[in-house]
């Protein structure tokens, strides 16, 4: 059984690209919150829940929209055979720090539940699954850099061993300095680039 990647996207504070084509520029001088909203508007998404998410979930949601829109999958109501495999370096550290500020000083102690829930990186997977009704396998890996070999090994096994026909996989990194999403859609067949570490590394280099 062959596996292929025929859709991938990048989102950075500078731009949004799908399959190597730039969709639009973003204003990198803006704070992350603002440029992510700019991307949301430009992608013409109608999803008010977006505005309550932290930046990591916003980024992941936007990237999932780029990957799924205009595919046959997009309209399927129950995506039981779609897996989501995400990774990043900073986990949820930006939100962790924001949450910590609500408990730092005894005089100003007011832990926020709406922040606390986003102090887990896999919430980004949850937000993608809720938006697109995805019920497949899911996992979140943390690695210092984009790690094509772990993603390849794991996703390849998912197709062989589980109820997986499609997998949204990749990298969604959000830290105080910058953000970067690189997601790709893996599916059965030979339509597209062969799914292997070389393809992933080559695509990642084009960011």
């Amino acid at each position, binding site marked *: 059984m062959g596996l292929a990647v025929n859709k991938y996207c990048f989102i950075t504070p500078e731009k949004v690209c799908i399959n190597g084509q730039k969709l639009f520029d973003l204003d990198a001088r803006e704070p992350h919150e603002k440029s992510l909203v700019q991307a949301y508007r430009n992608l013409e998404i109608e999803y008010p829940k977006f505005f309550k998410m932290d930046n990591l979930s916003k980024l992941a949601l936007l990237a999932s929209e780029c990957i799924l829109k205009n595919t046959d999958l997009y309209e399927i109501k129950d995506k039981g055979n779609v897996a989501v495999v995400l990774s990043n370096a900073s986990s949820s550290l930006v939100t962790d720090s924001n949450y910590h500020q609500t408990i*730092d000083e005894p005089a100003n102690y007011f832990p926020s539940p709406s922040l606390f829930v986003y102090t887990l990186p896999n919430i980004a997977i949850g937000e993608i699954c809720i938006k697109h009704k995805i019920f497949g396998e899911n996992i979140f890996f943390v690695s*210092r850099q984009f790690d094509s070999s772990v993603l390849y090994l794991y996703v390849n*096994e998912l197709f062989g061993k589980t109820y997986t026909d499609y997998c949204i996989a990749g990298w969604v990194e959000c830290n105080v300095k910058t953000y970067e999403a690189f997601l790709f859609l893996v599916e059965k067949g030979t339509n597209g680039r062969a799914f292997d570490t070389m393809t992933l590394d080559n695509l990642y280099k084009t960011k």
Partner: protein
Amino acid sequence: MKVVYNISDNIISSLGFTTAENMASIYQGCSGVSLHTNDFGIPEPFQASLVSHETLDEHFNRIADIKRYTFFERMVILSVHEAAFHTNIDLSSPETLFVISTTKGNVYLLDPEHSHEFSEERVNLWSSAKEIASFFNNQNTPVVVSQACISGVSAILAGKMFLESGKYKNVVVTGGDMLSKFIVSGFQSFKALSLKRCRPFDALRDGLSLGEGAGTMILGVGNEESLPADAIVVKAGATSNDANHISGPSRTGEGLYRAITRTLSGTDAADLAFINAHGTATVYNDEMESIAISRAGLENVPVTSLKSYIGHTLGAAGLIETISCSHALQEGRLINCLGFSDLGVSKNIKVITESSEFKEKECLKMVSGFGGCNAVVLLKRYN
């Protein structure tokens, strides 16, 4: 047929520093959950199962300098060390991979009171994982799984896949979480904590008890015919998202139900000795689990939870509890659901009130967590 099996394991919790100590305490009905006031600078009291720093450091001092590692890392390193101690597995081999499960790792280093203790980088999960793998001279980049309360089971299932890929000979699935102001205050802000020791599935349950600890399962791959006697095989497993809500469990148990049915495909429910549920004792979690169990047609399978013994150990929970299941299967003895007396969920599940013996050879471990995630693993005892 090649199967993935548990070669050796360890549990570190308030109940002890070896799997045997933990299992003995559990079978005796001992709980490590107790009331804590003024701990971690938290204004309100809370119930939790804490690992003794003094005892841990007494053990740790024999293998390394305690000052070089955070409490989280010391628990995990000691756990791996203990698990590997009686085996001949080469932890430094390129054919050995570390898979590390944690929700928050060293997050306590964000606290201005502690941030000076280690380098700034150390708060990152990958950095902490590198320290752990390097301690054992393992050169492979450790794989970190961080997926809320299902991290431990997810890590076991990932470990199984990495072994099945043929690239590795052994996978050390380890992980843990330590409690801190960060974690306790967050659960309190959610009003998720009970002021009494938690009571899984009981009518009077009103929240969870937190816990800390570490667990390690050293997995290997071998031929079914040549497994050691009583080997525990990681037979199957699945994860699934509720696709419903990020902080509340699904009302229909959708993700958990799907994970159970995918895991059990090809298995006869009559072979199941018990289900070790997530059983956090929050009103919604236990109710959701009862619905998923019922929908999967497993209402007659005995159900237990370990949360009233060792609290909810977060990223360690899936590991510690799966290891307990593995030993319960070998003992052939059910674990009583401590603190349970009257059924408080809508489905008529069989919560274990007596630690009787059984002959079946398989069991299910289930976990669910924030983000709507669910994971299930099926273990089988081979003779």
